[in-house]
C-alpha cells in the first residue's frame, strides 16, 4: 500500500516527482514509442467517446424521457462512451509518464459529455427558474435598473445586471438565448479554480487531476444553469484558490484565546502545512496585499449577487482561520461586516417584509433537514428511487471523503484545510432551509474538498495499475449514480417548444396587471413582463384538501379570482405541470387533472388557447362579482 510522505523531504519529493522525473527515467527510445502510441490511443479514445455520446443523444426525444430521467432513454452506446472515456482517463493517469494536457483533455471531454448533454437533448432551455432569471435580466435591459419591491431576486441583483450587460453586448434578443450552453460554460469555468485548489495541497499531480475528475463525476446538484448560484460558485472557488495558495498557515503569532484554542493550536502544530507556507512566504508582500484586496473585491461582488454564498465564504474563512490554515485572519470580519451592510442598507425593505420567512428558521436544524430530505421523499415510485439514490450518492461521497481524510491526516503534515473546507458548509443548515435546498447547496460548497479527500483514497498507490483500477471503480460508481441523480428529474424539468409557444400566447393575450394562475411553478414562464403581472400558484393559495373534485376546484379558483380585481385572469396548464404532478405527487389542494377537467366544464372559465402541450383558460367575470 502506498505510504503518504511524512516529512518535508518526502513531501518535496512527492511534489517534484512529477512527469519530468518519471519521464527522465523512461527516456528510452522504446519508452518514447510506447508513449506516442499511448497518447494517440488516448486521444482516439476521447474522440470516439465524444462521438458515440453525441450520436447516442441525438436520437432522444424529450417527450420519451421516463420517470427515472434521461437515463431511461439512453441507448447502450452512451454507456459505452462513458466507459471508454473513464478507462482511457484511468489508463492515462496510471501511465509512468502521465501527461497533464492529456488528462485535461479527458476532463474537458467529460464536462462536455455530462454537462452539455441536456443541451443536446432539450428543445428549449429546461428548469423553470432559468426562464425567470432571464425575465429579470430582461427587466434590467428594458428599464435600465432593478425594482427592489418586486421580489428577493431584485435585492441581490448582481448576476442579473451582468446577464443583461452580456445579452446587450452580444447582440442577442433575449437573455434566455444564453441559457442553452450555460451548464457547459460554467463547468468549464470552474476547471481553473478547481485545479488551483487541488494544486495548493502540494500533493501528487495525479491526485490533482483525479480530484477534478471526481468533482465532475459527483456534481449532481444541478446548480450550474443560468443562475446567480452558478456564477458566484466560480467566485467562491476562486476565493478558496487564493486563500489556499497565497495565505496558507496561521500567519505570525497565532495564539488562539477562545475555548478549545489550545486543541486547535495542537492540531495546527500537527498539520502545519509547511511546504505551502514556505512557498507563500516567498511571495512579495505587495503582491500578497494586492491578492488580499482582490479577494475582498470578489467577495464584495458575491454579496449583492447571491443570498447564501457570502455565508459559505464566511464559514469557510472562519474554519480556515480557526484551524490556523489561513493567514488572512481579518477576512471573516470583513465578509461579515460587508454582508451585514448590504442586508441593512439595500435589502432591508425586502427583509422586513419577510422576517418570519427568513429569520424563523434560524437554528431549526431539524426542520431544515426535514425540508431538505424527508419532504422530498414522495411522489411516484420513480421519483422516490431518484431521491433515495441522491441520498445514497451523497452519503457515499461523504463516506469516501471521511476515509480519505483519515488516510491523509495520518500520513501527511497538511490537509487540515481540506477537512475544514469539507465540514464548514454543513454549518449552513443552521441558517435556514433555503426552500428545502440547503443540504444540496452545502454539498455543492463541500464538493471540491470532498473530491480531493475521496481521491486521496485511491491516488497515489504503490502500484500504478492499482491506482488506475481503484479510480476506475470509483468513477464507474459515481458516473452510474450521476446519470440518475443529476438527470433524474428531466421528465419534469424539460419543456417543449409548444409549451413555450403557448406561454408566449398567454403573455400576448394578457393585459398588464393580469392575474396568471398555474397549478405549480414548473413552467417556462415569467420570462416576459417581469413585475408586470401577478403570477399566482395554486399550491401557494390553496393549502388544504378541502374540495378536490373537479367541480369544487373550479369553483374555489373562480371564487378566488372573483375576489381580486384585475384587468383579466387566466389559468394555464402545461405538459410539464402535469408531469410535475405525476412525478412529485399532487399538492394538498388536489390533482391537476381534476382542475383541468373542472375548469373545462365550468361556465366561469373559457378555453382561449390550446395546443398539444398547453391549455389556457380565461376567467369569465360577470357583473355580479364574477360568479
Amino acid at each position, binding site marked *: 500500500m502506498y505510504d503518504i510522505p511524512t516529512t518535508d523531504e518526502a513531501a518535496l519529493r512527492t511534489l517534484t516527482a512529477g512527469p519530468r522525473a518519471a519521464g527522465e527515467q523512461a527516456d528510452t527510445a522504446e519508452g518514447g514509442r510506447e508513449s506516442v502510441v499511448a497518447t494517440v490511443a488516448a486521444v482516439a479514445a476521447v474522440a470516439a467517446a465524444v462521438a458515440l455520446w453525441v450520436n447516442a443523444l441525438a436520437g432522444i426525444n424529450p417527450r420519451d424521457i421516463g420517470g427515472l430521467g434521461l437515463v431511461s432513454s439512453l441507448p447502450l452506446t452512451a454507456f459505452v462512451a462513458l466507459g471508454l472515456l473513464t478507462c482511457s482517463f484511468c489508463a492515462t493517469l496510471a501511465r509512468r509518464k502521465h501527461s497533464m494536457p492529456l488528462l485535461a483533455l479527458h476532463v474537458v471531454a467529460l464536462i462536455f459529455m455530462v454537462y452539455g448533454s441536456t443541451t443536446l437533448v432539450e428543445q428549449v432551455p429546461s428548469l423553470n427558474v432559468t426562464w425567470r432569471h432571464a425575465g429579470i435580466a430582461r427587466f434590467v435591459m428594458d428599464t435600465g435598473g*432593478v425594482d427592489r419591491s418586486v421580489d428577493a431576486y431584485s435585492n441581490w441583483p448582481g448576476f442579473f445586471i451582468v446577464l443583461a450587460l452580456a445579452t446587450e*453586448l452580444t447582440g442577442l434578443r433575449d437573455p434566455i438565448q444564453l441559457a442553452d450552453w450555460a451548464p457547459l460554460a460554467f463547468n468549464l469555468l470552474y476547471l481553473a479554480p478547481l485545479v488551483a485548489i487541488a494544486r495548493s495541497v502540494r500533493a501528487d499531480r495525479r491526485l490533482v487531476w483525479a480530484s477534478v475528475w471526481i468533482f465532475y463525476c459527483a456534481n449532481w446538484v444541478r446548480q450550474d444553469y443560468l443562475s446567480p448560484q452558478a456564477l458566484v460558485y*466560480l467566485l467562491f472557488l*476562486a476565493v478558496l484558490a487564493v486563500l489556499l495558495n497565497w495565505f496558507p498557515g496561521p500567519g505570525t503569532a497565532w495564539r488562539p484565546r477562545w475555548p478549545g484554542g489550545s486543541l486547535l493550536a495542537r492540531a495546527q502544530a500537527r498539520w502545519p502545512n509547511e511546504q505551502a507556507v514556505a512557498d507563500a512566504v516567498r511571495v512579495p508582500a505587495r503582491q500578497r496585499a494586492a491578492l488580499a484586496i482582490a479577494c475582498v473585491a470578489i467577495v*464584495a*461582488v458575491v454579496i449583492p449577487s447571491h443570498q447564501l454564498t457570502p455565508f459559505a465564504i464566511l464559514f469557510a474563512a472562519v474554519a480556515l482561520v480557526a484551524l490556523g490554515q489561513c493567514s488572512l485572519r481579518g477576512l471573516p470580519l470583513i465578509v461579515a461586516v460587508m454582508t451585514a451592510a448590504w442586508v441593512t442598507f439595500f435589502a432591508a425593505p425586502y427583509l422586513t417584509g419577510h422576517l418570519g420567512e427568513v429569520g424563523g428558521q434560524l437554528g431549526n436544524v431539524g426542520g431544515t433537514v426535514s425540508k431538505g430530505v424527508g419532504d422530498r421523499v414522495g411522489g411516484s415510485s420513480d421519483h422516490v428511487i431518484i431521491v433515495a439514490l441522491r441520498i445514497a450518492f451523497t452519503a457515499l461521497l461523504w463516506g469516501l471523503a471521511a476515509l480519505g481524510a483519515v488516510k491523509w491526516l495520518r500520513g501527511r503534515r497538511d490537509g487540515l484545510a481540506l477537512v475544514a473546507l469539507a465540514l464548514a458548509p454543513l454549518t449552513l443548515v443552521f441558517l435556514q432551509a433555503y426552500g428545502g435546498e440547503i443540504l444540496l447547496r452545502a454539498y455543492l460548497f463541500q464538493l471540491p474538498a470532498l473530491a480531493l479527500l475521496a481521491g486521496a483514497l485511491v491516488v497515489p498507490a504503490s502500484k500504478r495499475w492499482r491506482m488506475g483500477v481503484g479510480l476506475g471503480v470509483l468513477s464507474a460508481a459515481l458516473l452510474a449514480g450521476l446519470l440518475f441523480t443529476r438527470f433524474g428529474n428531466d421528465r419534469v424539468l424539460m419543456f417543449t417548444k409548444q409549451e413555450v409557444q403557448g406561454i408566449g400566447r398567454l403573455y400576448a393575450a394578457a393585459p398588464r396587471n393580469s392575474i396568471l394562475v398555474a397549478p405549480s411553478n414548473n413552467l417556462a414562464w415569467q420570462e416576459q413582463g417581469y413585475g408586470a403581472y401577478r403570477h399566482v400558484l395554486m399550491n401557494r393559495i390553496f393549502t388544504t384538501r378541502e374540495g378536490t373534485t373537479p367541480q369544487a376546484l373550479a369553483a374555489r379558483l373562480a371564487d378566488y379570482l372573483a375576489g381580486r380585481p384585475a384587468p383579466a385572469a387566466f389559468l394555464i396548464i402545461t405538459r410539464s405541470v402535469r408531469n410535475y404532478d405525476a412525478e412529485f405527487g399532487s399538492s394538498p389542494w388536489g390533482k391537476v387533472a381534476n382542475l383541468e377537467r373542472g375548469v373545462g366544464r365550468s361556465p366561469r372559465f373559457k378555453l382561449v388557447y390550446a395546443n398539444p402541450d398547453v391549455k389556457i383558460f380565461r376567467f369569465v367575470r360577470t357583473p355580479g362579482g364574477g360568479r
Partner: protein
Amino acid sequence: MTRPGWQWPVALYLGAAGALTAVAFGGSSTVRALVVLVFLALCPGMAVVRVIGVGDGWAQLSLALALSFTLDTVVAGVLALMGAWSPSAALIVLVAITVGGAGIELGRRSAAEASA
C-alpha cells in the same frame, strides 16, 4: 512574481479591439457573441492579474476569471444603480481597464529591458 511579457498585453489588446469592433458593427451572430463573452469573462481580470504579477498558470487563470466577472458586475452595477444604464459605456470602461492593465505590463517590460 511573473516577468512582464508581451504576449498577454497583445492578447488583451486584441481582445479589447475585438469586443469593441464586434459591438460597433452591431447585428447578432455567433462570432460576435463568442468574442464579447470571452472578453467579458477573461480580459479585464487578466489585465489586473498581470499587473498584480500572479505567476501560476491555473491560479492566474482562476483569479482572472473571477476578477473579470467582479469588474463586469461592479461597472454594470454602478451604472444600473445610478440610473445611467448603458452597456456601451460599461464596455468602454472595461476596455479601458484592460488596455490600461496591458499598458502597465508593457511599460514594466520596457523598464526591465532598459535596466538590463
